[in-house]
Structure formats: structure tokens, C-alpha cells
């Protein structure tokens, strides 16, 4: 991580939902071209962390910097405009729009580059023949796994340098989980920086360079993915080892 400046620095943020506090002084960094996973159980604050980075919730304390500039309190569109894409929790494709329109909306921030978008659409269709087949079908009528592929492809059409991904394996069959991670491995190979929130620690640690484990809104453990994968406590709590 030392050779370049970090892309994301989260420094001691607190987040409140009304009277409930979800994060307590969470700090993390994501370096350039790095894949960082945030792990943890239900209600540990993983999703809140990624939502804070995307500007969907506003920390009450602490700072978040993106490429050296503070982004606290900025709207999501301002953050997305800086080369960020998001794959939201639960896929969140637009159910009453066609697959084609969903993909196109991924490219919304660079909507004036018509020719590039057309070329990138072709590349997506090549990589995901399923989506090509179904391009005029309503997204809401596809299976969960297909919707997840669509959400990934939609984020890729942003041509981001950094992607925030919230629980990409949630509710998917093992076959689709493998497919999702194949896609993410490809992105990693392309040099895209990834901040990944995941409950499926085994898959996430295979992909990630480093990881943070959240518990009750605090960072409990952090380290390289291989260290965490062999940490007895993490193995016991999150990897199902005896």
C-alpha cells in the first residue's frame, strides 16, 4: 500500500440512526488497486460503513477522504462523479425497466460519451451472454442471480476506478456466488480498486488483499486477508472452523 496514496481513508467515524448509534469510531483505508473486504455478522455496521463512503448516510463525527479530498456530507452523486461505482445491497435493479435500460443507466454519469457507451455495452454483452439474450426483458422478472450479474454489469458500465460492493453473495445459490466472484477477480485483474462488504467471509478473503472485521459497530480485527484467514478467532467466528 505504501507506493501510492490511499484512495479511501475513513477516519474515526460515528454514525447515528436517530437515537441508535451504528458505528463507533470506525477507521479504515483502501489503497489504490487494492481489494479491501469489510466482514462481520448481522448488524455489525458493515453496510453502514459502505453507505457512509457513498454519502448515503452522514457520519456525526470523523472524516472520510476520497483521493485526498474530504467527502463528508457530500451527496452520493458527487461521490459517484469522482469515478466511483456502487453495487448496492440486494442488487436493486430497476424492476420495471428493461435489462438494456438498466445497463444504460449505469453509464449515466458519462452519458455524453455515446460512442464509448455503445462499445462498452457490446463488451458487457460479450462477457454476459445471458444479459444479451434478455436485454429487452424487464429486470424485475429475472432470477436473483441474473439480477446480481446485471447489477455488476451496470456498475462496470460506469467504467469506475473504484467500486463499492455491498454483500454481492446475499441470497444467491453457490453457483452464482462463484460466478460473482469470478467477475470480481476479473475486475481486480483490470486494476479496479474494490471496497467489498460481505458476510461470506470465506469468499471475500479469497479475493481481498486486506480485511477488517466489524463487531457491534467497531473494528475488532484487521490485517491482510491471509493473516485473517488463518487467525483462529476469525476462523472460529466467521469461517465455520472448529
Amino acid at each position: 500500500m505504501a507506493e501510492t496514496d490511499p484512495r479511501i481513508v475513513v477516519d474515526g467515524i460515528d454514525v447515528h440512526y436517530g437515537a441508535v448509534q451504528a458505528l463507533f469510531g470506525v477507521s479504515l483505508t483502501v489503497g489504490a488497486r487494492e481489494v479491501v473486504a469489510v466482514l462481520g455478522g448481522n448488524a455489525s455496521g458493515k453496510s453502514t460503513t459502505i453507505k457512509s463512503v457513498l454519502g448515503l448516510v452522514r457520519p456525526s463525527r470523523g472524516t472520510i477522504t476520497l483521493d485526498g479530498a474530504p467527502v463528508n456530507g457530500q451527496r452520493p452523486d458527487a461521490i459517484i462523479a469522482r469515478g466511483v461505482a456502487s453495487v448496492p445491497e440486494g442488487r436493486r435493479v430497476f424492476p420495471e425497466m428493461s435489462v438494456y435500460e438498466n445497463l444504460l443507466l449505469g453509464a449515466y454519469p458519462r452519458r455524453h460519451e455515446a460512442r464509448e457507451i455503445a462499445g462498452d455495452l457490446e463488451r458487457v454483452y460479450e462477457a454476459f451472454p445471458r444479459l444479451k439474450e434478455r436485454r429487452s426483458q424487464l429486470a424485475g422478472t429475472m432470477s436473483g442471480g441474473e439480477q446480481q450479474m446485471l447489477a455488476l454489469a451496470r456498475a462496470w458500465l460506469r467504467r469506475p476506478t473504484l467500486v463499492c460492493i455491498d454483500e454481492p453473495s446475499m441470497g444467491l445459490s453457490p453457483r452464482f456466488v462463484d460466478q460473482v466472484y469470478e467477475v470480481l477477480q476479473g475486475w481486480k485483474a483490470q486494476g479496479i480498486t474494490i471496497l467489498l462488504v460481505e458476510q461470506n467471509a470465506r469468499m471475500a478473503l479469497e479475493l481481498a488483499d486486506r480485511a477488517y472485521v466489524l463487531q457491534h459497530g467497531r473494528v475488532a480485527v484487521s490485517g491482510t486477508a491471509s493473516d485473517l484467514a488463518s487467525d483462529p478467532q476469525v476462523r472460529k467466528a466467521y469461517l465455520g472452523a472448529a
Partner: protein
Amino acid sequence: MELFLSQILNGLAIGQVYALIALGFSLVFGVANIINFAQGALFMLGAFIAYSAIAWFGLPLVPAAAVSVVIVAILGLLLERIALRPLIGAPYVAPFLSTLAISTIIDQSAEIVWSPESQPFPASISSTTFFIGNAYITVTDLVIFGFGAAATVALTLFVSFTWTGRALRATAQDASAAAQLGIRTDVMRQIAFGLAGALGALSGILVALYFQSVFPQMGIPFGLKGFAAALLGGLASIPGAVVGGLLLGIGETLASAYVGDSYRDAIAFTLLLLMLLVRPNGLLGGGRLDALGGAGAAAGAMPTTSLLASSSSQQSALRAYYLPPWGFLAVGAAFALVPLVVSSTYVLQALIYGFIFALLSASTSLVSGSVGILSIGQAAFFGVGAYAVGVFARPYGLPADATLAIAIGLTALVAVVAAIPLLKLTGHTAALGTLAIGQIGFLVFLNWVSVTRGPMGILNIPHPVLELLGGLRFATTEQKYWLVLGFAAVALVIAERYVSSPIGRVWRAIREDRLAALAAGLPVRRYILLAFAVSGALAGLAGGLFAYVQQVVSPESFTVETSILVLTMAVLGGLGNLTGAALAGFALAILPEFLRGFAEWRMIVYGLLLLVALRVRPQGLLGAR
């Protein structure tokens, strides 16, 4: 047969206009998840601004229409900015009431600027008639249909094939996901409101051309019809709004041709209620999306959770201040002493109206607050009570005990029957259902001449006589003061006992989470009907007393303005808090007595009060319960 076909062609033209109003509702509902009550006011302004551009500045029709569309579109943007943006994250009920307040202010301002009278629209299209086979159609109809259809097609192309249009639809389907793609959802909201304003203005001008007249009160009935059309089509769907508008247009044109023109609106609103009863999801808006777990926006008006809850976060505990049931007797006893020191009939008269509105406001607070079905039709129940006394007191010569009992019983019954179509509904949709009930009530009072004597009203209602008290007669103002005070205090004690009892707890449970209440095995329907019965009884009593005090009953006392006024009172007092409702009702009813000379500003003041209250203290003065 020729008449039938001609009516259908005619209905298509006006239906196309309803479709445009409906599209305004659908756009805003889809993108902002708000039913914009002020859509009718924008519609009316569209017609009047075009009217002024022609009549005052001598512009030809087309430029006048263009000016009007632009101005009203800007007003739509302002509406979002002033009345709605500050309320993001506020209780669910707040944005709706906010548009209601704005609409009241706009309507009343229009009456001040353009006078309350109906005025002929100064432009027309040739009245040449065409024959299609034996059916006829006028050029006006054709032009209206053409313009309406062109606007619909343009809108459809816009949302289907432009980046902004796609972003609008994306925001409507999933605002949070749209934001994560870099779409500025706040700008999309503004665009939706601006478009709704433009559509409203255009439809207002077309209606002015169709009926050749404009009047400041046109906003509410046409707004309500546009909403009916939108609902018919499933509320968030563009083709649905068009189909809904056309069906409504044809339906009411046929009704006015075969049943009578005075029933045109009554039939349209009855259709709306029937629709709510049979297919609350609309003709085209089935449950398909719910089954797939998608499209929060298309599924319904609002979650079935509390109107008072907010989407943003947990509620912090709010304190409510209220009297125990016997407290109303204590306050009543204190007020009973007033005539001993105050002899001015003017003051006593004002206090009497204060008591009546305290009762009416409490009746509104009971359904709107405790059960969570926002009532914008309470004036209809008030009116039923008043007409019951009006009809039975003079021709039948019944004593006040009997007439008031009839007023209470009959109104409770009417309220229960009126509540049946609302049983499946929550949130905004239920509120618009009550608005339709209020409108139907008013139209019945106005048009059922054989019973209500129509616009003339029932005059010379005799002084009340209580047979149970040995034929005691209440003729002077002091005597009537005591009569009204006594009935109001006792009725409020009973109502407060309901609200504080286990029954009241069930009502609040239904309000907070209807699904949970059902899952807990509570007979939800029965409890809702009971709430309407109690509320109706209170409103009926208020109406009966009102008839005896006024000695005249006429329809203009029971317009939607009255309904909005009493709802304002209930909100200001704190929804579900009868003490607050009674206090606010009393205070707001005697307030205009101090503002004499500003009578026409009254509704504007109320609207502003409501707006300020929503911003500063949405839980009401004494706190919602």
C-alpha cells in the same frame, strides 16, 4: 344510439384532460412518493393565468397558454422547494398536509385576485360540428383531444428515450439505487414537480376551453377527478393514467347525459369510491410487482405504518398533554359561569361556535389521529347532522331530544357506510377517499332538492325544546350557550373515554401497524368501523347543534373548506389528542371573530398556520397521541 356515440366521443375529449391531470399525480407520486394535493390548485392557476393573459393583456390563446404553462411549471418547482423539501424525513403525514395547506392558500388567493365568481373564458375554438356517421363531435372536442393526446405522447417519449426521462423513471422505481448510479434524485423530484405543474396548467386551459368558464374553486373537483383517473390506472403508471382518464371521462359524460348534469361530479366521485372498494391497486396496477419483491413505489401509497412515524429514523419520545375524561366536565362547568358575567350576545355566540368546532375537531382527530385515516370529508358528517335536525325539527315538529338523537344515529350510520370503501386503504389513498366522501356529501346537500331544498337551504328552524327536561325551551343566546356547552362537554367525556380505553389502544395499534394488528388477531375492520361510528356521532351532534344555533341549514356550510379547516384544527391540536383538538377547534373558531374585516384572508391564515405548524411542531400544540 347517435347520442350514445356522441357522448362517447365527447367523453374521450374530457377524459383526455383528466388523463393529463392524472399524469401530474402519477409523475409526482412515482418520483417523490407524495400525493400532491395541490395539483388541483396548479390546474386552476393554469386556467386563470391563461384567462388573465387573454383578458388583461390581450394575448391570443396560444401564447397565453404557453405563458401560463411556463409560469405554473415554475410554481410547481417552487411548491417542491417551499412546501416539501424542508419536510424530507418528517412524519409521513406532513408532506400531504403541506400540499393541502398550499392548495388552500392558492385557492383563496385566487378568490381574492380574480373574485370568487365564475367567469366566461375569453377564448374559444370554433364550435363547428363534425359528423362521424350519425355521431357528432365539435372542433373544440377534437382540438382538446388532439392536444391532450399529443402531450401524453410527448411525455411518454420523453421518459422513454431521454437520459433525464430514464433517470426520472429510475428514481421513481428505486430512489436509493438511482442515487448510487450518480443520479441527482433531488433534481429529479424538482423536474417531476415542474412537469406536473406544466401538465396541470395545460389541462386547466383545456378544461376552460371545454366548459368555457373559469372559477377559483375548480381546482378541488378536477384535481380529485384527476386523482380518481390516476388511481383507476394504478397510480404510478403512465398508460394507466391515460386509460383511467378516458374511462372516467366517458363514464361521467354518459352519466350526465342519461342521469342528469347535476349528478356528473357525484357519479365521478362515486366511481372513485367504488374503485377503491373493488380494486385499490387500479385496473392496470396489479400485485405483480409485490410478488416479485420489487418496486416499492408502484406497490402502494405508503407503508401501513403510522402516519405520524417518519421514514428517516426512530421517533424520539414525544410528550402529549391531555385532560382525563372528567376534565372536560370541569372545563365545561367553568365555561358555564361565563354568561353570568358576560352579557354580550356577540361574545356568547362566538363561544358557542367555539364549542361546536371543538366537538367537530375532536371527531376529526379521532379518525385521523387515533385510527390514522386522515379525514378530509368531515364536513359531510357535520352536514348530515345539521340536515337531520333541519328536516325533522320543522316539518315533523320533533323535540330536540329526538332530532339530536336522530342526528347522532343517522350520522354514525352514514359514517360507517362511508368508511366501508376505505377499509382496505391506508395513508394518502384513504385520505383522498375521505375527500371524495366529503364532495359527495356536499353534492347531495346541494342537489337533493326535495329533502334539502338545495341551494336555498332549510330556513326557520325552531328553537330547541328538550322533552326529557319537561319541555324546557332554549330560546335566548344564554340558554343555547348552556345547551351547546352541556352537550359538547358530555360528548367529549364519552369520546375521551373511548380513546383512553382498551378500544382506543386497539385504534392506535391499527394506526401504528395495521399488518401487525391483523397478525395479532384483532378484528381490524370492526374497530375501524366503530371509530367512524363514534366520530360520525360526534360530528352529527355538532351538526345538529349548529343547525339549532344558526336556525338555517344550507350547503355552503359543508364544503371541503370546512373539512380542511377542521382537519387543520385536529393537526394543530395534535392528532389523536382530543384535548388538543378541542382546544385548537375552539381557538380557531373564535379567532376569525377577532379578525373581522379580514374574512377573505381567513383560509389563507389557516393554511399558513398549518404550514408553520408542520415545520415547527408536526406533533401539534399539545402533542399527538
